[in-house]
């Protein structure tokens, strides 16, 4: 008679029942709104995986150049002579004409420069740039904003349950289930959609400035969208920017019937637009989108909240443009650095292949165990099935994503999980061969095997955890199933197999355990 403590029964039955319930619940047809359970990875259900990189250099360059512009205006207003004002991709530099203004200039700078930038004064020379921490803060902020905008734009396309998250330092991971051709999404994300209304600078002609290359301070030269050879000279100061939009909708012009985008400004925007247009009737202003002039109408009357943007658009373009304007401008350009798209056909083929491989692996291992160990082998096979229930139950609790390599991990677990059973059986066999009684052999065998099983499996677990750190989707799925499989196979061998074997010995009182005389 082998005594098994009653907590042992309790624990085994409880764990198998609880996890088994979850696992079986998962294998039933899923309801579409169910948020609980194992998700299929993109490689199994089809979809797109996009890794986007936020171009921080562009953000910093823009910040630096706009700071240079502010310094120029501010120092001129305060009548402090400066020279050699220049900015590059990382910092602004300038010199004071007279050292006597040093303290005054420093105070002005302290008021102008945000806390994430560092002012380094030497003699009468100033250098202002980002330090490491400032750059990190700006990156975190920018990536966070970009994620919001990406989410808004992706939502507009009607993609179901997209996953959008920051990855690493300046990247955004975008997973789009069910979208195997992400062309439209890529087009939408490929544009920053920075909108601004700027007055045309009439102090010089754009053609002359372009020929001479000397842009007047405070102005900029931008190309037309329709004809890259046509340029406009514009005031750098933006009267109304995209953030002041309250709404943008595609529509048609009442007179010409051409496709346009109608917009509504918020209160701040309307007030500013009204003031500037009121003061500049008869002058030309430009509607600038992503550094291209879309159109440059003449102000005929004061305009407040409502207006429209026309510019030789197709209906589709007005749809996209109003979507982009509604969702807001990206704080920085995004670049696709990794893309993986899987069609639904391949996904369902993969699921089928995975299921077949799992079935054949399971049947093969079961036959082998039964041939080798007879009735005891049958008990091991029952333990494997319990192990599978535990595995799926754990995956359900973790809300894990099942990928194709993940299925491979499960199949591999079937093969490797019996190892713990084999170690136990072989130990018991040896004890029996050494002439011990069945009950003693059972006890010593299990006790000695347990240490070995834990040693051997913890090393596998260590390797699987390292694999988890490599990251990317499908492989992560593999490391999850292997880790979970290792844990549940230890549990099933040490507790469930022991329980089954003890029950079998107690009930049938066999004369032999294996194919050898006891």
């Amino acid at each position, binding site marked *: 008679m082998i005594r098994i403590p009653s907590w042992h029964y309790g624990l085994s039955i409880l764990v198998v029942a609880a996890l088994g319930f979850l696992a079986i619940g998962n294998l039933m047809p899923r309801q579409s709104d169910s948020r609980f359970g194992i998700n299929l990875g993109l490689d199994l259900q089809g979809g797109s995986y996009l890794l986007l*990189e936020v171009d921080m250099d562009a953000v910093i360059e823009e910040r630096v150049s706009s700071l240079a512009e502010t310094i120029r205006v501010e120092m001129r207003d305060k009548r402090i002579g400066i020279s050699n004002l220049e900015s590059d991709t990382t910092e602004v530099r300038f010199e004071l004409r007279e050292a006597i203004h040093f303290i005054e200039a420093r105070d002005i700078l302290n008021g102008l420069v945000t806390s994430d930038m560092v002012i380094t004064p030497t003699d009468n020379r100033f250098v202002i740039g980002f330090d490491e921490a400032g750059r990190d803060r700006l990156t975190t902020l920018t990536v966070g904003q970009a994620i919001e905008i990406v989410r808004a734009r992706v939502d507009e396309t009607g993609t179901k349950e997209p996953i959008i998250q920051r990855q690493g330092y300046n990247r955004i991971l975008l997973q789009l289930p069910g979208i195997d051709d992400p062309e439209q999404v890529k087009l939408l994300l490929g544009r920053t959609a920075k909108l601004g209304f700027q007055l045309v600078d009439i102090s010089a002609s754009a053609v002359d400035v372009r020929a001479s290359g000397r842009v007047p301070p405070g102005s900029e030269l931008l190309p037309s969208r329709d004809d890259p050879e046509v340029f406009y000279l514009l005031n750098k100061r933006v009267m109304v920017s995209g953030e002041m939009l309250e709404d943008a909708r595609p529509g048609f012009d009442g007179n010409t019937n051409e496709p346009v985008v109608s917009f509504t400004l918020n209160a701040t925007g309307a007030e500013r637009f009204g003031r500037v247009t009121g003061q500049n009737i008869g002058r030309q202003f430009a509607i600038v989108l992503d550094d291209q002039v879309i159109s440059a109408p003449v102000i005929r009357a004061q305009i407040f909240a409502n207006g429209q943007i026309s510019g030789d658009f197709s209906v589709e373009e007005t749809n996209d443009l109003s979507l982009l304007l509604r969702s807001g401008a990206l704080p920085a350009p995004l*670049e*696709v*650095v*990794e*893309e*993986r*798209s*899987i*069609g639904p*056909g*391949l996904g369902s083929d*993969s699921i089928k*292949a*995975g299921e*077949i*491989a799992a079935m054949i*692996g399971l049947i*093969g*291992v079961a036959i*082998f*165990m039964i*041939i*080798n160990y007879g009735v005891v082998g049958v008990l091991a096979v029952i333990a494997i099935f319990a192990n599978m229930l535990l595995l799926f139950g754990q995956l359900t609790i973790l809300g894990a994503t099942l990928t*194709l*390599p993940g*299925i*491979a991990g499960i199949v*591999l677990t*079937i*093969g*490797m999980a*019996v*190892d713990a059973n*084999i*170690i136990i059986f072989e130990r018991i*066999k*040896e004890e029996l*061969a050494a002439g011990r009684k069945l009950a003693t052999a059972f006890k010593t065998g299990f006790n*000695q095997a347990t*240490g*070995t099983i834990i*040693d*051997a*499996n*913890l*090393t*596998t*677990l*260590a*390797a*699987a*955890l*390292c*694999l988890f*750190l*490599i990251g990317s989707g*499908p*492989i992560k799925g593999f490391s999850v199933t292997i880790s979970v499989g290792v844990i549940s196979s230890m549990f099933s061998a040490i507790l469930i197999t022991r329980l089954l074997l003890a029950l079998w010995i107690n009930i049938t009182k066999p004369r032999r355990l294996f*194919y050898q005389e006891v």
Partner: protein
Amino acid sequence: MPMLRLLPTDKTISFLKLKFLTGIFSVFLVAGSLLLWVVAGLNTGIDFRGGFVLEAKSLSGPADIEGLRKSLGDLNLGDISLQEFGSESEVLIRIQSQDEDAGNGLTDVNKEAIKQVQQSISDSYEIRRTEYVGAVVGSELQQKALYAIIAALGSIMIYIWFRFEWPFAISAILALAHDVITTVGLFALTGIEFNLATVAALLTIAGYSINDTVVIFDRIRDNLRKYKSWSNIEIINFSLSQTLSRTLMTSVTTLIALLAIYFFGGAVLSGFAFAMIWGVLIGTYSSIYVASSLLSRFDLRPSDDDDMLPEHERNG
């Protein structure tokens, strides 16, 4: 009557008689693998190198690879590799990045190239999968993979060091390195694509191989305590014989599962399964002929048997 009896359990097999021959064989394998790795190099997939991959399935009949090679060659996209993938109607198309300077981003040039490829084959093929990896992301993935392998080997080493004394740890780690290096060598030899899944296989092989070694070492340590007058060789041969049927049985069940993946799991998994099948074979071999062989060369009973136990288990 036993239906099947793999091995008699009461017989000791003199495994270590072959240790000189297998030692030479292993040195040859490792040296050859390193040489192949350096000379022939690995056929790294886009995960590590960057570029495009398209998986296409012929809408009717087998894929016409020669025809595809010709029509895609006309697009002047540089090095294009085509390969049957899984079944004869499916084909895997690999294209290098078209914009060397860009390094990372999916630039217009690259988008244009991929569009051309899609258009030129879309009449008779269904495009089932498209992947693009930027060169910078590729080299980052490569680095991450390397770190993961180092971290895995390192944590296994620390664990073994903690549980066993240093002769065991060194023998186990050398056996592990032997398995990982020869697996990489196999990929260099066969030219099978080396990608993230292969790295997953390498780490799993490391886990499997150490598992095998630990079971054997556990037994050796046991027997060192039980049979104080026996020599190293006797102890190790006896321990290997005792654990042999477990070693073989586990290898067989794992191989059954891997063969199922290799033959039925689809083309995406076959490279992974191939590496693992090799890994199980070499891992089983190395537990006996690298790890245990090496161990026999150490003085396993310096002065007192307790020295074979780590600090925390002494006098216990």
